[in-house]
């Protein structure tokens, strides 16, 4: 059966409030490259939500979404057969995938999904790949069986329910003591990317991080997703949507970045409370 564009053709639950979607969209499936993202609107009154593209297959693409605010709750509550109001993409610069030699890939939480296509492409280019995946607990350590192609795979959980007890960055710190890397990728919560970037800086290798800035249009028009990059020569403003989403984490001003993520904390809280009051019990999600 042929579904209209932007139909959710498959939905899978990984853990509470953590879902995978396959969405019908021919433009995205035809052109998406590792590292790029889409912007989704669930409804006519919805926000424009940027989400990293995890995978494609003919006519469809894959997203992994965690419900944290009103808009992502609403998206996670959508079912197979539902049609999203808008999907636009692919957007952003693709990852610079080539043969570097020894590559370290870090994925934290939902970021595991985002690094999957990058890791796969890096392997195809002949890199020697070490991957560290981490989450709070075993249930949230998603997609780990899809990383079978890498040369070395380390798993971490905060609670020790699987793999090394600790964070991805803890494991990275140990690893870089004995192994040299030419480049790294790190995708996950801002605090994880920040500390991974510090480790990479200390050991003097570039580290690409994928920034989940607050953005509106996604094409370089609004300027909301600006990030401050700093090196010894000074600082400059770049835009996540058109200059990123990947930046060398060694040069990101992490304090500024993390502060900008909190811009709408109060409004986000209000919107979520109101939404939850309307929809009732969502403990099943």
């Amino acid at each position, binding site marked *: 059966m042929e579904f209209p564009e932007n139909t959710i053709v498959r939905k899978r639950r990984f853990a509470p409030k953590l879902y995978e979607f396959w969405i019908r969209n021919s*433009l*995205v499936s*035809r*052109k998406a490259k590792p590292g*790029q993202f889409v912007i989704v*609107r669930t409804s006519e*009154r*919805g*926000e*424009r939500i940027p989400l990293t593209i995890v995978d494609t297959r003919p006519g469809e693409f894959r997203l992994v979404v965690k419900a944290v605010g*009103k*808009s992502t709750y609403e998206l996670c509550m959508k079912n197979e057969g539902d049609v999203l*109001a*808008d*999907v*636009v*993409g*692919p*957007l*952003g610069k693709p990852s610079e995938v080539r043969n570097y030699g020894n590559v370290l890939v870090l994925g934290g939480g939902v970021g595991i999904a985002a690094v999957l296509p990058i890791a796969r492409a890096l392997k195809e280019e002949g890199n020697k790949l070490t991957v560290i995946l981490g989450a709070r607990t075993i249930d949230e350590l998603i997609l780990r069986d899809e990383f079978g192609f890498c040369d070395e795979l380390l798993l971490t959980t905060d609670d020790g329910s699987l793999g090394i007890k600790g964070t991805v960055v803890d494991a990275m710190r140990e690893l870089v003591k004995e192994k040299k890397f030419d480049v790294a990728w790190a995708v996950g919560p801002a605090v994880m990317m920040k500390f991974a970037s510090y480790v990479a800086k200390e050991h003097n290798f570039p580290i690409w991080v994928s920034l989940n800035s607050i953005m*509106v*249009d*996604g*094409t*370089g*028009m*609004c*300027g*909301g997703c*600006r990030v*401050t990059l700093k090196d010894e020569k000074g600082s400059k*403003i770049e*835009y996540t949507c*058109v200059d990123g989403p990947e930046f060398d984490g060694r040069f990101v*001003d992490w*304090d*500024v970045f993390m*502060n*900008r993520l*909190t*811009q*709408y904390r109060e*409004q*986000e809280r*209000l*919107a979520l409370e*109101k939404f939850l009051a309307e929809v009732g019990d969502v403990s099943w999600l």
Partner: protein
Amino acid sequence: MAVKNRVPVLERPVEERIKSFEEVALGYTEELAVEEAKRCLQCKVPTCVEGCPVGIDIPRFIKQIAERNFEGAFKTVKSFNYLPAICGRVCPQETQCEGTCVLNKIGKPVNIGALERFVADWAYKEGLEAQDGADVKIQEARDKKIAVVGSGPAGLTVSSELGRLGFQVEIFETLHELGGVLVYGIPEFRLPKEIVKKEISDLKNLNIVLHKNTPVGYAIDPRELLETYDAVFIGVGAGTPKFMGIEGTDLNGVYSANEFLTRINLMRAYKFPEYDTPVYVGKRVAVIGGGNTAMDVARSALRLGAEVYLVYRRTEAEMPARRAEIEHAKEEGIKFMLLTNPVRYIGDSNGRVVAVECIKMTLGEPDESGRRKPVPMPGSNFILEVDTVVEAIGTEANRFLLSQFPGLETSKYGYVVVNEWGQTSIPKVFAGGDIVTGSATVISAMGAGKRAAQGITRYLLESV
């Protein structure tokens, strides 16, 4: 014969309008329109037409209004301009048609803008469709296909012109709504979105195919456009906002005008949480700049309940904004801080802006723009306490699409280089609007669209 005074346009009272996003100017009633139309001298050599970038037969449509032939007037206007309700509202008429009106010599010019708006509003209220209006003579269907990238004023004009000639036109728009700056940049109180929707939906009568959510550059490779279409028009707008680059630009609460207006206009943030996109407007807002965009931002912030300070480094005389916009802003209570420039933004411990440090300016020698250059007065620094800052100081060339377009010649500022017909260094590619000129007006983009449509027609039918 004594020239009568210009008939004033009805406006929503100040105390009412500052509380809502409803349209400020209410236009003319039939009686008022006829009265104003009768002021036109019907010059043998109509200088007003020369002042109109799309060359509307102005005396003709005004005469038709004076004769109460409103439908005829609508047809006349629409045959030159497919978007009269939009243009009647947002064109800078005072520097165009009205600026060259002969009546300027002895009094106030005919209110051509308000009359244009009147005929469009009247026609749409009467249920007239575009094809009832204009002499839409779709000439023999042609098998040439044209891709138009961007659905703002330039792209819409190119499309309507070429569509009328029978070309197959497809518009590609990245956002989820069509209209470009008309929907994300211009506030509801100046240009209701319903009006934009109406005029755009009329394009379907010209068999124009509309693709929303389609970013040319990544989703569609420019090479594919070059292979699939006989001509391509680029009208992607001005692009990325400029920032002054002073300390504190990265604080929360510091916005570009584009972001602030996009949240409010396109995403309806003024209706949050009924709509999901928020905007932060505190009690006191500083808007930096003196153009139309700065006025739009200031008046939007005011309607969201803030006390608004407009910080501009020159005097009111040098402000690039339209006179009417400046007057509206003042009437509504925007506080103008002239000859003042911000030097840094000051944040609290949460990284949120709480004040702007400003410096007083004086005007020195004329600069390259011909305007006297603002010079800071040492030691005149002072602190303005605010919760929100919006910089409305312009934009720079969009790099989203252009960086993907092989072989396209751009200027040193990154704008597309074109000839008088809007043709770029790639013969089948044309461009117009802000991506050629840098940020300008809706009507200049439409004028460019009109010329490019002629250029494309020549290119496809004559020189090939």
